[in-house]
């Protein structure tokens, strides 16, 4: 008895000329683009209620989105909180992050910020203070505020863009950094622009990702 079905074997069948890339986009010189990961900031306005933060953070882990930092805090409206997420993904991934976030019922609006948006982070840096004069000179250089000092240590508070904080940590490294604590990036759009304005479904689905370019998602 024949097992299986009859018909032309695979190698006898016509094959189409086209092809798609990993992102499901048909490969065509005009639309073809390499999608390298890029770093960007996404701001979401959410209902201020229990469970929203875990909804959002859970989304990132279960959909395997690369996330660099996530901050959350209240807004001028008691019923709303703002979540700021820094992600590193290729364009289609960033699109998915925005759409999946919008899909969560307690999420009110989501926006990817322009590269020139205001972005700040706060860091506490505790260093060995064997040479107070030198340590203070570095602190001055980064506009750091002294928060605590002991015979052996000094702790500074620095705010600024991520790059500034990283530079500061590196420079303090020469004295010996004991501990650091960083808040992660928080951000707002510039001028009169609203940071997380609501979009219609079509706008959100067809929203063009920012043109592919290498830019630091930081400013200062």
């Amino acid at each position, binding site marked *: *008895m*024949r*097992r*299986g*079905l*009859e*018909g*032309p*074997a*695979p190698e006898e*069948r*016509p*094959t*189409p*000329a*086209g*092809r*798609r*890339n*990993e*992102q*499901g*986009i*048909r490969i065509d010189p005009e639309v073809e683009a390499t999608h390298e990961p890029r770093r960007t900031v996404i701001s979401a306005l959410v*209902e201020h209620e*229990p*469970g929203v933060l*875990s*909804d959002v953070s*859970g989304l990132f882990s*279960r959909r395997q989105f690369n996330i660099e930092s996530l901050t959350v805090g209240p807004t001028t409206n008691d019923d709303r909180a703002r979540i700021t997420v820094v992600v590193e993904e290729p364009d*289609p991934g960033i*699109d*998915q992050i925005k*759409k*999946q976030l*919008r*899909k*969560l*019922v*307690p*999420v*009110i609006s989501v926006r990817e910020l322009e590269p020139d948006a205001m972005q700040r982070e706060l860091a506490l840096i505790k260093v060995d203070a064997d040479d107070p004069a030198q340590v203070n000179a570095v602190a001055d250089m980064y506009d750091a505020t002294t928060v605590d000092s002991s015979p052996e240590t000094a702790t500074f508070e620095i705010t600024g863009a991520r790059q500034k904080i990283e530079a500061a940590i590196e420079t303090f490294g020469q004295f010996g950094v004991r501990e650091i604590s960083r808040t992660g990036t928080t951000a707002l759009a510039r001028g009169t622009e609203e940071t997380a304005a609501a979009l*219609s*479904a*079509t706008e*959100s*689905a*067809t929203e063009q990702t920012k043109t592919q370019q290498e830019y630091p998602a930081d400013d200062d």
Partner: protein
Amino acid sequence: MSERAAKVTPADTDEQHDEQITDSAAPDAAQEVDGDADADGESEPTPVTTGAESVVRALENAGVEYAFGVQGGAIMPVYDALYDSEIYHVTMAHEQGASHAADAYGVVSGEPGVCLATSGPGATNLVTGIADADMDSDPMIALTGQVPTAFVGNDAFQETDTTGVTTPVTKDNTFASDPDRVGTDVSEAFALAREGRPGPTLVDLPKDVTKSETDREPDEPTVPDTYEVQERADEEIVEAAAERIETSERPAMLLGGGVIKGEASEACREFAIEHEIPVITTMPGIGSFPEDHELSMEMAGMHGTGYANMAITHCDTMIAVGTRFDDRLTGGIETFAPDAEIIHVDIDPAEISKNIHADYPLIGDAETVVQQLQEAIENSPQAKKWRAQCQQWKSDYSMAYDAPEDEPLQPQFVVEALDEATDDDTIVTTGVGQHQMWACQYWTYTEPRTWVSSHGLGTMGYGLPAAIGARLAADDDQDVVCFDGDGSFLMTLQELSVAVRENLDITVAVLNNEYIGMVRQWQDAFFEGRHSASDYGWMPEFDKLAEAFGAAGFRIDDYDEVADTIDEALAYDGPSVIDVHIDPQANVYPMVPSGGDNGQFALTEDQL
């Protein structure tokens, strides 16, 4: 269905609460008198006095007729309120069964199915069915008991972080913390389960909240303000898509489950027939287009027909409606419809360009958008040659199988025989595995909401509890047939007790090969025939087991027993089980291996 009133069964919990004893001892006679008085009097509903009553009132306001569940400590106040309700509660053997029954009820009726369970194990047992509904976008609402608020977080008896556990598998969930608000929480969850892209929602109900006094009636079921659904697609994109269709030489429609959920089957049929466009369906899209129509290419994907996979691979324009381009449909992304511009109609913006890039993203309600397209199209595509090619593929890659009478019984024959013995509107439910694929391939579906299966999650054991839910949602004159595999049936067959108790007329055909057949098939193809943990070698006698449950049991071993036995089983007024001993070596073809090229489907094992 039996006439008995909904009543509370003794709670299956270790908890020794006083109210448990009082409840199970409640005299039935008094209950029936109350019920009759309500039915005759048409009186105003009695005012809500507790959180639990508010929960039940919310369900009543939403038009709920049936609920599926299992009693237990923390959900007892809700069951107590249900005792006085017109809602008919079906006590299932296991909470998983309750979730699948509710899911199938939602699939067949279009309205959210309701399931209930207690805290802890009750809630975790629901999770498989909730995840199943989530993957298939089926409307469902789960109500779970929870330990009293003061105990939450203390690892109390039967405590589980239910909202935490179910967050990834629900459309939305809520921990009800306020007795004045709990009814409205349920109303909102009901609306959310149904509106937009449907899905399961869950409300976790702490026992103190449901027991507390409140006189607040629940609000009407409406979605929260933050939830917006777009009905109509962008006109400009519709125009552009219409133009693309008009100039297409090789157009195809791909209809997914969203067509059925969006009640767009009729609009899609009209569209396809008027413009003579071949129609392919996904597995959840089965029933959206009549498979006996000449434009039907039937189901595509891993075990789709050869002709559907040829059409999908070679089309130049694909009108995809209500599909999420699951990997079992697409095979390898690189080779999926590589010549096609994709017009993607979906109500969920997040599905657009998730797996397959949409050249024309049309976000909106499936029926509305297909009608928009219909209005925008002035000329049908000129695709005579393409249609002839599709017909040629239908004959080149026919699904005809060998079934010599002196060889072991082939499963396809059984599926076709049952199809022939039943009306066109018969509802088919399945478990997951080879039998499910044969049921897809060899049954001819013509109507939406007649195919009820576990597509995305692939839950073995779905078939029998789904048949129970489907039976209660179906019209009385509709038959309900469940195809199951021996392995799949063994996972939830305790629900037969429910079908017997409720006297539900369903016919279960167990395609028994004493293997986890699909795994055995893959082991033969990809693991050198090493049958690790797939060869049962022995199975209970399902016909006798059915009889022990009080159902009718039948057995088929040979071709000449098929027709008569099927007739007898269908004629039996109540649940019947046919243990069909099929060729244990039968395999499902065509087959596209995981991540493979749809156009290179295998027709035999050596082509894999």
